């Protein structure tokens, strides 16, 4: 036993932790590195030289980047908004009510995220076909909403389980109607859960490829555009430039959400 009481990880454990970190982050580092390479056909290591010209190319000479980026942002935003509303309502309903078959229904809500994307994709595509719905932004949104709702639902349900049910009654007892109770008591309780669920839903939607392939028709979201770029050997580092931007843009809100929810957990935990 060490006298300071904090056990120290063994050498093997520290080594495998370091390897784990490397395994996760070296590919990311390579993506960033090759955004600066001077060579545009193959990714030889080490890069023959470093340049910033691909950033200029991406910005000025590649108008084909912008429509997929815009579509992806639009789809992710709408799917997240839809998921926040429907996921919260579903969680609230299943938390409060108890009825025969509740567990099965709960499972049905979670199933879309456990189901392989390819199944969801095929199922949606045939459904759209049968109903004669043409492909549009909305068919992509619907495809993404299937799994976005699940992450919001799960987050909010977990929060509801930790929240005392008599709090809602207490609020109504003190004169607040349903809407005021939601605004002053329920929403602050689930706010961080909504934020975390929403961030996750947005991220899942933003990089989704499989379901999108089946529900997008001729439209291209950003991930699909990137996939196509890798097959075409033209100005390859431009793809990396876009990837770097995506990393930068997604990293900041995720960091923010992490700090915000960590704070939330802290105050919730201190209530015990």
């Amino acid at each position: 036993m060490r006298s300071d009481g904090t056990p120290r990880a063994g050498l093997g454990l520290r080594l495998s932790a370091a390897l784990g970190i490397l395994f996760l982050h070296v590919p990311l580092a390579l993506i960033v590195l090759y955004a600066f390479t001077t060579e545009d056909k193959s990714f030889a290591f080490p890069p023959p030289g470093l340049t910033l010209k691909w950033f200029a190319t991406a910005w000025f000479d590649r108008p084909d980047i912008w429509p997929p980026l815009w579509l992806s942002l639009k789809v992710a935003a709408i799917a997240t908004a839809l998921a926040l509303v429907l996921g919260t309502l579903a969680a609230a309903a299943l938390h409060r009510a108890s009825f025969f078959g509740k567990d099965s229904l709960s499972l049905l809500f979670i199933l879309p995220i456990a189901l392989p994307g390819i199944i969801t994709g095929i199922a949606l595509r045939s459904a759209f076909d049968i109903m004669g719905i043409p492909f549009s932004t909305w068919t992509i949104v619907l495809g993404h909403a299937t799994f976005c709702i699940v992450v919001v639902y799960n987050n909010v349900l977990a929060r509801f389980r930790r929240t005392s049910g008599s709090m809602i009654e207490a609020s109504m007892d003190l004169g607040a109607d349903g809407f005021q109770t939601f605004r002053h008591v329920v929403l602050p309780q689930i706010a961080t859960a909504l934020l975390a669920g929403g961030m996750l839903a947005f991220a899942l939607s933003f990089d989704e490829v499989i379901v999108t392939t089946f529900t997008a028709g001729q439209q291209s979201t950003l991930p699909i555009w990137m996939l196509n770029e890798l097959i075409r050997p033209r100005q390859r580092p431009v793809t990396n430039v876009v990837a770097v931007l995506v990393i930068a843009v997604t990293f900041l809100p995720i960091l923010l959400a992490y700090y915000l929810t960590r704070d939330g957990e802290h105050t919730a935990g201190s209530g015990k």
Partner: protein
Amino acid sequence: MPSAVRFQNVSRHFGTVRAVDDVSLDIAPGEFFAMLGPSGSGKTTCLRLIAGFEQPTAGHIEIFGETAEGLPPYRRAVNTVFQDYALFPHMTVGENVAYGLMIKGVSRAEREARAKQALALIKLAGFEARRPGQLSGGQRQRVALARALVNEPKVLLLDEPLGALDLKLREQMQEELRALQHQLGITFVFVTHDQGEALSMADRVAIFNEGRIVQAGTPADIYERPRSRFVADFVGSSNVMAPEFSRQHGGPTGWVSLRPEAIRVEAPRGKVQPGSADGQIIGLHYQGALTRVVIMADGTRLIAAVPSGSIAFAEGDTARFTWDRAALVPMAAD
């Protein structure tokens, strides 16, 4: 003047379960009223019917002369102190207490002043900026009380508010609640399963069993003259004598109860007279000022409570219990 709360043949059924079954009661303004019963006896459902969290299946409820059935909780001049306090963890103590006023649209300055007053009333002055998570159980209970009282309810409902506190704190809160109720003159309706608490605090007690009120009256009334075996059993540890036993020992033919304090314990001398019974002592329980002596007499368990200094017996001895016939209280068989 109308009753503070009036139930006329009120029932609340959940499917086939009759949680509250044809209950009628009148609670007078300014009364400290306790609803006492085992869990599942309908007392909490009755409280929720007054608060508006439940609506009656049948019957009529009035609060200060106004029809209450159909009104949601937020339209009733009653407030509740919840068993688990139900404080809002994301608000400070001050915001918790001022919540009802904030909903009513009272200005910030006024509601802060009134919250401060309410906190001072329950001896938590200066706690406004704390979070409920930083308080002890007893302090949270006080905040819950202040949060209800600040709205000046006509009736304050308390759902086992002392259940989660330790014994010493509970006794202290019992006294304070009583004093507070005298000071404010508000009608208090109090739900508890603790008969000691109900008897020591309330002006009047209603005993619930299986969704019905089996007896209502002053604490002395209920304690001294239980009307049924259930009440005698539930309120304190009264001796219950079956008709046969009662007749053999000089009492009436019928179920009777006998308070442990009404029994004298003597050494057996001569023949057993009417109004007495011999039995072997199977338990001697020292409880401070009193000692409870338990004997088995002709298959009936009898308990006497006698001053601790006066005991000259040991377990296994035979003792004679004697009582006055007038101390026997006839009651119903159920």
